[in-house]
């Protein structure tokens, strides 16, 4: 689906990337721990998170994340917005909690960028 569909499904507000809503997305990953995001998230995925600092943008940039969806109504700082603009990473914010955000996207066809981790220690 397009990022504009994600916006509709989540009743989200676009904070950065109003011009990028044609972006096509198929997968997502959700976490507040950036090391988990770095370990598991795949390029081109949506990142669902409640963390709003600049490290979320750095992490998204490192991984080529398509767009960041802030959950629980979180608003990013001005530094975070500035960095997202500079690195051209869209940010949307939704009032839905992480579970609802993931569920609503899943029922509309977005799937996890992986289903299960490979072993007990959580590595993939």
């Amino acid at each position, binding site marked *: 689906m397009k990022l504009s569909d994600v916006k509709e499904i989540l009743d989200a507000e676009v904070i950065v990337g109003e011009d990028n809503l044609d972006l096509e997305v198929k997968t997502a990953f959700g976490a*507040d*721990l*950036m*090391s*988990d*995001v*770095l*370990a598991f998230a795949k*390029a081109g995925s949506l990142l669902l*998170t409640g*963390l709003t*600092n*600049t*490290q*979320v943008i*750095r*992490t998204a*940039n*490192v*991984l*080529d994340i398509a767009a960041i969806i802030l959950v629980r109504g979180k608003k990013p700082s001005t*530094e975070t917005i500035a960095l997202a603009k500079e*690195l051209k990473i869209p940010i949307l914010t939704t009032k839905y909690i992480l579970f609802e955000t993931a569920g609503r996207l899943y029922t509309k066809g977005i799937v996890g960028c992986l289903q299960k981790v490979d072993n007990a*220690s*959580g*590595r993939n």
Partner: protein
Amino acid sequence: MPVAETNPNLYSGSFIIEGGNFNSAGIVSTSIKSTLKKLGIPGDIVRKAAIVSYEAEINVVSYAKKGVVTLTVEPGIVRIEVADEGPGIPNIDLAMQEGYSTADQRIREMGFGAGMGLCNIKNYSDAFHIESEVGKGTRLKMTITTP
């Protein structure tokens, strides 16, 4: 690929990480990523190198006074070396255990500090070496190769 003996280095450069400056954490790995992209390195290699250097950068910012990242690109190989002036690691085996962490609240607020950094670095590197001296610093050497 060009023959290594005539022109082994496609790129060699270093980047300084300022310890304790949490706002700047990630700048160096962003630069490394764009440098590798400009050199035409394949996307999955660039991604691995960016992840590895980013986690290392977070460690330097979190624990050390200063760090120097040296990036060397040879045909088919990306080498990243991170040497810091920090407290050093008393027990490397313990530090390499996933989940072991000495991180403070500031590091955790950034979304790190869960004892995964060194594991992520090792897992995304094709070769990984760590050496550390208490009171002097830590040196990481990572190699990422084109399949």
